[in-house]
């Protein structure tokens, strides 16, 4: 890597994006967007919490089912809560639960929404997005 390339490496933006992925809404908080960070945190917390309460499917890769890989990536978008729920709490979801389908949608949506937040943080940190 050249000196010029090294100096232009967007380390701050990368760190912010990683933080935004790991801890939902933390990217906006670190950027000083406290009100929005609070709003995003509440939305994601409710979506993820309700998804687990309804015992929805927290996607994991299933051999021979290519779409399960995409869904897993989407669900992993929520960051640390995915890994804490799956590996820390041993959460799996319950297909026979009444709210299984709704729960799955809530869990997947939480991951996808957080991925959008990561992109938003990246754009703001790189100065690509006009912000107040």
């Amino acid at each position: 890597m050249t000196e010029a390339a090294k100096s232009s490496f967007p380390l701050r933006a990368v760190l912010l994006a990683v933080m935004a992925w790991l801890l939902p809404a933390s990217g906006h908080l670190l950027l000083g967007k406290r009100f929005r960070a609070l709003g995003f945190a509440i939305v994601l917390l409710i979506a993820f919490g309700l998804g687990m309460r309804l015992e929805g499917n927290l996607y994991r890769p299933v051999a021979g089912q290519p779409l399960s890989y995409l869904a897993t990536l989407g669900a992993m978008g929520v960051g640390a809560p995915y890994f804490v729920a799956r590996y820390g709490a041993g959460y799996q979801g319950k297909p026979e639960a009444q709210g299984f389908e709704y729960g799955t949608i809530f869990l997947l949506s939480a991951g996808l929404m957080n991925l959008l937040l990561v992109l938003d943080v990246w754009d703001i940190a790189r100065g690509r997005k006009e912000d107040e």
Partner: protein
Amino acid sequence: MSHLVLMTTYAALVAVFFSLLWRRGRQQQAKLFLQIFLGMMIGAILLGWLMYPFPTGPAAPIP
């Protein structure tokens, strides 16, 4: 929880999220919130009503 409560909750969460993400200023955010929320609610009810004539069919297989 009933389907309607869950659907309303989902629509509200999505509407809050995108209004905060895409708009600046309370008035603009409130406007987009209403557009998304009402669009999802009315759209879902309309779609459900349009699907009335179709038979329900067998239950979906458990993944």
